[in-house]
């Protein structure tokens, strides 16, 4: 059989040990597949979604209850998005725990962080597009956080929201960000990220003279494994979408109603918990940004992992990075859980 375009996207052979799902957890590939699902289901939703404040929530209800399989497509889109964030975190943790961020992969690591930020912003902007009573406070507080940034806070607010009052006028701007302004960069970055994986030598492995296992698998085997993963992820997504419908609430009518839900979306609950402690700029902007900077600095500032340790799980030489990342993850999880204990 002659290799197809998709086969050619992969190198002819790759090291067998690092190609195993047990090694990579198939996280990166799953993330790209989820993005593909999001793109397709998103475009389908665009045929029925109406991006003006009076009709947006009603159009979401039309998609959910009246368009044939509309509710299913919407739930698919929703779960693919939430799973993307989780799988991206797993991928980040895997990369750190297998010391796979070292030279020449340091720039690609930054690209990955950029992708993670874009995914979070896409999740948030997509959530806002529901334009129902539950999204008003997250939109209001999230965009007011921008205003707390000194010097360019107000400009950032106008660029992100389009000015005006967030819960009245922000819909169209968020729609453009979600459909185009954030999606185009994420497509470019994903292509670049995937290209860099190949140019940097594929899945991180120790250099040849330090390699223990020299076994390799062909690209056909790899593609077959990826197809299997895609089937499994599809089945899981379809079952989730069928049994767990995407959240929905009554249409928003301008002023935040007293009965509105004041909970942030799940991926920002940790920030909402921190904001209870005081100054919004420090706890809502500075600390999350600081965490991001810390993560970005791991390949540059932290002790470099030894060559023999690259591509093995939990090696000794980058223990500090593993501990830092684990602590950050645990803190975020703990903060999230704290919001459930009132």
């Amino acid at each position: 059989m002659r290799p197809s375009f998709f086969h050619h996207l992969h190198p002819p052979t790759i090291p067998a040990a690092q190609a195993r799902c047990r090694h990579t957890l198939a996280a990166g590939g799953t993330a790209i597949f989820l993005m593909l699902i999001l793109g397709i289901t998103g475009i389908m939703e665009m045929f029925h979604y109406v991006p003006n404040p009076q009709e947006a929530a009603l159009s979401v209800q039309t998609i959910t209850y009246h368009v044939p399989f509309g509710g299913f497509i919407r739930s698919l889109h929703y779960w693919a998005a939430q799973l993307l964030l989780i799988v991206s975190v797993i991928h980040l943790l895997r990369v750190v725990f297998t010391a796979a961020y070292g030279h020449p992969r340091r720039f690609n690591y930054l690209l990955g962080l950029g992708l993670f930020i874009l995914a979070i912003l896409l999740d948030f902007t997509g959530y806002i597009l529901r334009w129902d009573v539950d999204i008003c406070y997250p939109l209001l507080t999230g965009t007011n956080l921008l205003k707390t940034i000194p010097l360019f806070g107000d400009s950032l607010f106008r660029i992100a929201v389009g000015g005006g009052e967030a819960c009245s006028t922000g819909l169209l701007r968020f729609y453009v960000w979600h459909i185009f302004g954030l999606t185009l960069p994420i497509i470019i970055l994903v292509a670049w990220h995937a290209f860099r994986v190949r140019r940097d030598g594929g899945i991180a492995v120790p250099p040849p003279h330090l390699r223990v296992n020299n076994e390799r698998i062909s690209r056909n085997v790899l593609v077959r494994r990826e197809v299997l993963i895609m089937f499994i992820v599809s089945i899981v997504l379809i079952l989730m979408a069928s049994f767990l419908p995407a959240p929905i609430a009554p249409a928003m009518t301008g002023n935040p109603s007293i009965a509105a839900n004041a909970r942030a979306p799940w991926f920002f609950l940790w920030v909402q918990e921190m904001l209870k402690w005081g100054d919004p700029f420090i706890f809502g902007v500075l600390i999350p940004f600081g965490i991001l900077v810390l993560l970005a600095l791991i390949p540059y500032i932290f002790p470099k992992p030894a060559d023999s340790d690259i591509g093995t799980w939990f090696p000794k030489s980058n223990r500090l990075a593993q501990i830092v990342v684990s602590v950050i993850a645990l803190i975020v999880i703990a903060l999230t859980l704290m919001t459930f204990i009132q």
Partner: protein
Amino acid sequence: MSEISRRDFLKLARDGFLYLSGALALGGLLRFLEYDPNPAPKTEFDLGSASNFPLNSRTLLSNPQAVLLHTENGFSALSLVCTHLGCTVEQKTDGFTCPCHGSRFDSNGTVINGPAEKPLRSLRVETTNEGNLKLFTA
């Protein structure tokens, strides 16, 4: 001044111009995105006849989010926008609580606890000649 070859100088000039062009384009893009076509939000609200708000009453208004007070000293209003991040505070028996991050204020708007630091804003209320009330949020 150290010597620089013509080739390197031209390369420097070319790169410099490209970076400057990029900066110009970025600046233009940011200004393009910043434009706000929306009219400025209303700051003056007509509340109707003053007789709707008898002495010693505290009336919750929904537009704008405020509570109107009528005391012996006249009419005044307290903004219900939390000074922390802008959610609408809820009226409780002894003051106001914000549902977003837990800030609490007493019935005069002073901060009791919670991440908010500034008290709830006092809003100006004026009576017109016809006996109507006007609320100013500016």
